[in-house]
């Protein structure tokens, strides 16, 4: 009963108009009017559902649409509406199915086809996308959008020839050529050029580029591409000229110089002394033309060494200190990969400091009539040197210098920030936080220092203070700071806060934050939806392509990685240490040090108090629609603690890392933990091998290999001892067979595990993290070898370990000694640590 009488039929058409113009209330009223007479009219029911959906009545919406479908299964409108509903729920898979049904009943419906293609590209279903775009163009070939859409669909399938042909054909259909400064046409042409470039035919690309020169608005892109193609085609002289032209446009762009050097046939990756000389010559010539370029002044530092370097860096530093460049150290730090350069810099700056103190000049002045420096020169020299020693982790020297600087000019925010950083590196997080707060108070309108201060509060495990501080800069009209930070997708804060809660063993809240990061990434993926139409309409095609590619790689972002790593580790921990809902009794303190337990308990009581306080403060009831406060029904994140399958949750975070961060060894180390817990030994072995291929000397990898070998041997022994194996013998036999043939590729089977570990230690002499891993491995191999392992660990007090002796490593060694080995030796080690890390609160609190 689809046909309505003429009056209602007209009304229904009106309903469709109401939807188009977003007049949902009117639409709903009209729908009700029809339904009064024809309560079983499917399409009207569906439309009513659609209106309700837009009025935030999700459940009712679904009910009506489903009801509508029931009465009219063959209506393309009903299916289309159902698809729209799924789409608005971000349920793209289901939405695709609905559109597919809808098209069965109206195969040439432009609107449905259009929507269908959007979903296909969103789901990266390139082939189907291509089919839809082809059909769309066949139906409507007057609109340029359909030509370009089809070209994109071929491009994404890497069918460059067809993509190009479509665009050419499109240009041919144009009755008159667009005017000279038509942005959309210009972008289309540059996109065309990109397709040719990606097909790898640089000669064609260059030819095409030259042919479109007059039509291009984005001149810089055009120039950059041209220079790039010339370089690729090894037309060096022309490339050089092209790059020099670009340099004259912007003499501070690194890429242009790189291009220029490549065009001068200098490979900056492997340099001979001759080539370095050549680079410096080139720079000197260029510098006469572009005396204001900062990059040109920096190049010589990179390409000279020894005495020559000393002269250059002397000049560079003096100019910067005189001018007062706060970022000078950051610039210089990159040179520290060369220890000789680091030493030269130290020597020079120490001299400056002495000379400025005595003569007010950088260099020892011979005649009294020399010009003297401004007082700020001395200040910036102190600042630079403090950062230098902090970088060397000479905490006391750095502190002394920065304190002198603060005494000299006590109003400078940067000085306090550096002091905070020095304290943090030295292990005194509490004072680091206080100094950051002092800095913040010097300039209350500086968001950067406010955020830094917030971060230091979180590092010092003070989430409440941190929230108050960051709240100074969140939007005033937001319901509360946290909501605003979430709306703004402020990830650094969520990460730091999550890690803070994790340290406090407040795992529910920690997981909540890490899931929040996952949600931000999911939202970013969803957000691209609108751009599929927008970019096509605005013809910003190159940007569109790079957005699609970015979205495909999105979860390789370091923020995602950090959140995922934390979440995986917590879920793996929860699997063995499940928590009851209130967490209190089931709190697992076994694997924690006393410190951690204390901190956790303290945090808990604090959190409780804060929660009570929060409860007392009744949230202001506001009817304002725009300010609707979303009630958080699980502020403590308990639902994450209660999940039935923590390993399954862990895998959800692990999977994107395996695809997108497979070059990071941590991905495979986490994978190994996961698969071992899942008892999937072959996949665990695969993870080990992948890690091995990235860095075979990785300390954690070594421990994992040993653990794996021990575990598999134990299983095999068990299996052999039992006449009737408990496990499915064929499956396990296969596992043993594969492991026994594959494992030797990373773990030689002709030597004992002990010898293997000793060789590992010998290869990595002087590294504390390897020492720790080795000691761990030896304990696993033979739990009786405590004496020997203790001696090995105590070796780390020797000088050869000084370069890897970080606070973190020392804490690990101490805890290992204390909890598993020999507490008197631990005491001895602790006393050494107090000398190495005189301000570390970790060791101070041990004594309290």
């Amino acid at each position, binding site marked *: 009963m689809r046909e309505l009488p003429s009056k209602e039929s007209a009304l229904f058409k009106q309903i469709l108009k109401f939807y188009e113009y977003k007049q949902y209330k009117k639409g709903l009223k009209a729908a009700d009017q029809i339904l009064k007479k024809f309560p079983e009219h499917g399409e009207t029911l569906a439309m009513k559902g659609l209106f309700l959906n837009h009025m935030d009545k999700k459940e009712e919406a679904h009910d009506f649409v489903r009801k509508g479908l029931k009465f009219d299964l063959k209506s393309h409108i009903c299916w289309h509406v159902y698809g729209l509903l799924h789409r608005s729920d971000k349920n793209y898979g289901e939405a695709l199915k609905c559109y597919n049904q809808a098209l069965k009943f109206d195969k040439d419906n432009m609107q449905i086809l259009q929507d269908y293609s959007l979903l296909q590209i969103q789901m990266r279903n390139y082939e189907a996308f291509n089919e839809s775009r082809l059909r769309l163009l066949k139906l409507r070939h007057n609109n340029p959008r359909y030509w370009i859409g089809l070209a994109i669909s071929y491009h994404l399938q890497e069918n460059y020839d067809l993509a190009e042909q479509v665009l050419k054909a499109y240009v041919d259909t144009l009755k008159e050529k667009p005017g000279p400064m038509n942005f959309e046409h210009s972008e289309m042409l540059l996109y065309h050029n990109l397709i040719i470039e990606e097909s790898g035919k640089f000669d064609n690309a260059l030819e095409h580029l030259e042919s479109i020169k007059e039509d291009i608005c984005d001149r810089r892109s055009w120039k950059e591409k041209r220079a790039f193609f010339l370089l690729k085609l090894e037309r060096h002289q022309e490339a050089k000229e092209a790059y020099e032209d670009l340099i004259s446009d912007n003499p501070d762009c690194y890429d242009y110089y790189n291009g220029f050097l490549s065009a001068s046939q200098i490979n900056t990756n492997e340099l001979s002394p001759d080539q370095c000389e050549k680079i410096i010559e080139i720079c000197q010539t260029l510098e006469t033309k572009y005396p204001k370029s900062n990059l040109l002044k920096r190049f010589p530092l990179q390409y000279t060494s020894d005495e020559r370097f000393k002269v250059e860096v002397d000049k560079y530093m003096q100019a910067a200190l005189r001018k007062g460049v706060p970022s000078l150290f950051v610039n210089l730090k990159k040179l520290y990969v060369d220890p000789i350069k680091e030493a030269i810099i130290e020597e020079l700056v120490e001299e400056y400091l002495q000379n400025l103190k005595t003569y007010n000049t950088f260099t020892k002045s011979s005649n009294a009539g020399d010009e003297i420096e401004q*007082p700020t020169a001395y200040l910036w020299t102190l600042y630079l040197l403090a950062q230098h020693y902090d970088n060397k982790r000479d905490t006391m020297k750095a502190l002394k210098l920065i304190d002198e600087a603060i005494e000299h000019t006590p109003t400078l925010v940067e000085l306090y920030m550096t002091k905070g950083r020095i304290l943090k590196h030295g292990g005194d997080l509490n004072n680091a936080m206080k100094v950051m707060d002092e800095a913040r108070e010097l300039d209350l309108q500086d968001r950067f220092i406010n955020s830094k201060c917030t971060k230091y509060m979180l590092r010092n495990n003070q989430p409440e203070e941190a929230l108050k501080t960051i709240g100074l800069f969140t939007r005033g009209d937001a319901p509360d700071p946290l909501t605003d930070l979430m709306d703004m997708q402020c990830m650094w804060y969520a990460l730091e806060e999550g890690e803070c809660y994790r340290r406090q063993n407040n795992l529910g809240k920690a997981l909540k934050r890490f899931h929040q990061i996952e949600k931000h990434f999911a939202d970013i993926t969803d957000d691209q939806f609108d751009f599929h139409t927008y970019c096509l309409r605005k013809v910003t095609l190159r940007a569109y392509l790079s957005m699609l590619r970015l979205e495909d790689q999105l979860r390789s972002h370091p923020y995602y990685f950090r959140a995922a790593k934390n979440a995986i580790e917590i879920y793996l921990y929860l699997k063995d240490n499940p928590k009851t809902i209130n967490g209190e009794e089931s709190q697992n303190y076994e694997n924690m040090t006393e410190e951690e337990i204390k901190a956790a308990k303290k945090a808990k009581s604090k959190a409780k108090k804060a929660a009570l306080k929060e409860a007392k403060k009744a949230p202001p009831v506001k009817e304002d629609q725009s300010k609707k406060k979303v009630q958080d029904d699980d502020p403590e994140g308990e639902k994450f603690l209660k999940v039935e399958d923590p390993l399954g949750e862990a895998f959800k975070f692990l999977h994107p890392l395996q695809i997108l961060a497979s070059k990071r060894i941590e991905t495979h180390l986490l994978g190994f933990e996961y698969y071992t817990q899942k008892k999937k030994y072959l996949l665990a072995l695969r993870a080990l091998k992948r890690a091995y291929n990235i860095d075979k000397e990785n300390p954690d990898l070594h421990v994992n290999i040993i653990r794996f070998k021990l575990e598999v041997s134990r299983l095999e022994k068990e299996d052999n001892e039992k006449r009737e194996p408990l496990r499915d013998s064929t499956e396990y036999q296969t596992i043993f067979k594969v492991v026994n043939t594959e494992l030797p590729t990373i773990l030689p089977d002709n030597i004992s595990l002990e010898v293997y570990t000793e060789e590992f230690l010998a290869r990595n002499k002087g590294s504390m993290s390897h020492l720790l891993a080795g000691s761990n491995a030896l304990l696993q191999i033979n739990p009786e070898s405590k004496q020997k392992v203790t001696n090995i660990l105590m070796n780390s007090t020797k000088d050869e370990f000084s370069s890897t002796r970080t606070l973190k490593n020392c804490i690990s060694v101490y805890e290992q000694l204390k909890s598993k080995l020999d507490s008197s030796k631990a005491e001895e080690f602790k006393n050494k640590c107090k000398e190495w890390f005189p301000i570390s609160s970790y060791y101070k609190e041990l004594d309290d």
Partner: protein
Amino acid sequence: MVTSTAIKNNKTPKRNTAHRVALGEITPNNLGQLKKLNTVLFPVQYSEKFYKDVLEVGEFAKFAYFNDCCIGAVCCRKEQIKESNQGTTSDQAKLYIMTLGVLAPYRNLGIGTKLLTHILQHATLTTQHPKFVEIYLHVQTSNEEALAFYKKYDFEIVATVEGYYKKISPPDAYVLSKKL
């Protein structure tokens, strides 16, 4: 309270590179810097009221910047002159310099002069209402540098207040004044 500020002597050596001296506003957001300056410059602790008032006097409280570092400040207070017999306010006022100081490493660079000139200029603006007839301040009797500095700008000792300072020695202060 005044620190020893600039007395330019002829032996000042030539300074390398040009430097920038600028004056800047004191706002609630950078008040922390004024507090830092005052703790370093003066042996007196200033009340919260001092900092509140500073925000109200406009051009009569200023920071001095040297190469973009905040290194000195001047803070004044406006004082209405009361009609002696009726107790009502007249349209005449005095300007009192509460603090004027420059951090030690930045002295003898003309920054104190710049701060004082700024105050004098604004105090004598014709648009100023009420009109300032006098500018004055207290200086510790032992602070010869400061005395010399202000005398250079035609300030005169008009009185000596014994026991003006509570916690420092000598406790006596001169009142320096200049008619406008």
